[in-house]
């Protein structure tokens, strides 16, 4: 049976993971390579690297780090942040990314979704959407959630899928950082029509939030979170054990045989 995926997200700036992490046994807690290997061993099903670098030098450093990580971590890697052109897709795919997530770049130029899907396949294009309730509507926000675009989020997602997005990451600004659980209402609205995988993001505070997510909305495919994994509030092996006990299918990793 296909499993629900658990996805840690790492914010990378100038080649280092920001939002410091604190794990025993990690030599360098802000090394993306070490942290990625740690999560992979812990049973993460996929990793998202989000490049929050603003400078050209930082971007070059990011691709070096990505290449090094992809050379050592053998689970799917998604890369987001600063993806505005097909050249950006190419740059990160050549370094070992499997999927590329677009957000503001697609708002500025919606054609990017279709062009990338045509060149690299739908499965490669992830549409990441930051959405927030405004005047009784789900509204798309750009620039890391700072700017109201006025675009209706459900309509934007529907169009994105039509253009060829192979997966949706729905980040609710309303629940993000609150740790009171995922935005079930918003996720349900998207899952009611989306025929591509939907990844829930924003709001996870404890293991029970993931149980509630997958039990309330069976069509959600994955749960994404950052700080609760990084700060150790939720350990992925514990999370997966509880999900399994509650009847939610999750992958079990095997020990190395080499």
């Amino acid at each position, binding site marked *: *049976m*296909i*499993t629900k*995926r658990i996805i840690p997200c790492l914010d990378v700036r100038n080649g280092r993971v920001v939002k410091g992490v604190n794990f025993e046994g990690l030599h360098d807690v802000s090394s993306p390579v070490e942290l990625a290997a740690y999560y*992979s061993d812990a049973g993460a*099903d996929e990793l998202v690297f989000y490049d929050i670098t603003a400078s050209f030098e930082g971007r070059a450093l990011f691709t070096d780090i990505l*290449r090094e990580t*992809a*050379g*050592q971590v*053998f*689970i*799917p890697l998604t890369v987001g942040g600063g993806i505005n052109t097909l050249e950006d897709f190419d740059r990160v*795919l*050549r*370094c*070992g990314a*499997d999927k590329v997530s677009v957000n503001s770049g697609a708002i500025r130029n919606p054609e990017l979704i279709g062009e990338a899907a045509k060149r*690299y*396949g*739908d*499965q490669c294009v992830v549409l990441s959407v930051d959405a927030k309730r405004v005047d009784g509507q789900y509204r798309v926000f750009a620039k890391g959630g700072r700017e109201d675009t006025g675009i209706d989020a459900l309509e934007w997602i529907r169009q994105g899928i039509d253009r060829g997005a*192979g*997966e949706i990451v729905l980040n609710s600004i309303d629940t993000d950082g609150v740790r009171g659980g995922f935005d079930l209402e918003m996720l349900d609205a998207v899952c009611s029509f989306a*025929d*591509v*995988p939907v990844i829930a993001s924003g709001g996870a505070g404890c293991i029970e939030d993931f149980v509630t997510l997958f039990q309330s909305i*069976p*069509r959600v*495919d*994955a749960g994404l979170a950052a700080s609760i994994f990084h700060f150790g509030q939720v350990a992925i092996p514990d999370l997966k054990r509880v999900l399994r006990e509650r009847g939610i299918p999750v*992958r*079990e*990793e*095997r*020990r*190395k*045989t*080499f």
Partner: protein
Amino acid sequence: MIAIVDYGVGNLFSLKSSLARIGADCCVTGDAAVLENADKILLPGVGAFRDAIQKLRATGLDETVLRQTEKGKPLLGVCLGMQLLFDKSFEYGEYEGLGLIRGTIEPIPVPDPVRYKIPQMGWNSLHLIGDHPLFRFIREGDYVYFVHSYHGCHCEESTIATTEYGVPVTAAVARDNVWATQFHPEKSGNVGLAILRAFAEN
């Protein structure tokens, strides 16, 4: 030496890295002479069948792969690289494959498209059929990573693993020295590495 066929399709970085990780000597090549001298051949591929088979034929490497496998050289097809080995694909038309595995490539006939989205994208468990050496380091029920909308049909005699996605889906096939997986072993964590190791060491 395992030679990964480079015919301009797909991301070869991860395959190369994962073979390096298990200590296998490997190279990425579009050179027929290198494929001829290699001990084993790995045929990758992502994207659409038509583009891939056209590119493979345009390089002439289809002939090299066929000649080498006829001589008994071990071949591993991965993802679309598996589909290319079949007689025929019905993805956006009807296209001839390499004919190394009897059968056709057809859409996954999901009974409930609301519950089972297409493509199948994610981790699913393997049901092993028989006792194939490709799986000697893994167990029934182990999870591997899939990304595909089409799968092998009418290939029961070659099927060595299936996965359940509303219907049984062909996950791996083998005939003599020609082995292939629909899933991505290079993206399937320790289980995937154990599968690549079985190919490398066989």
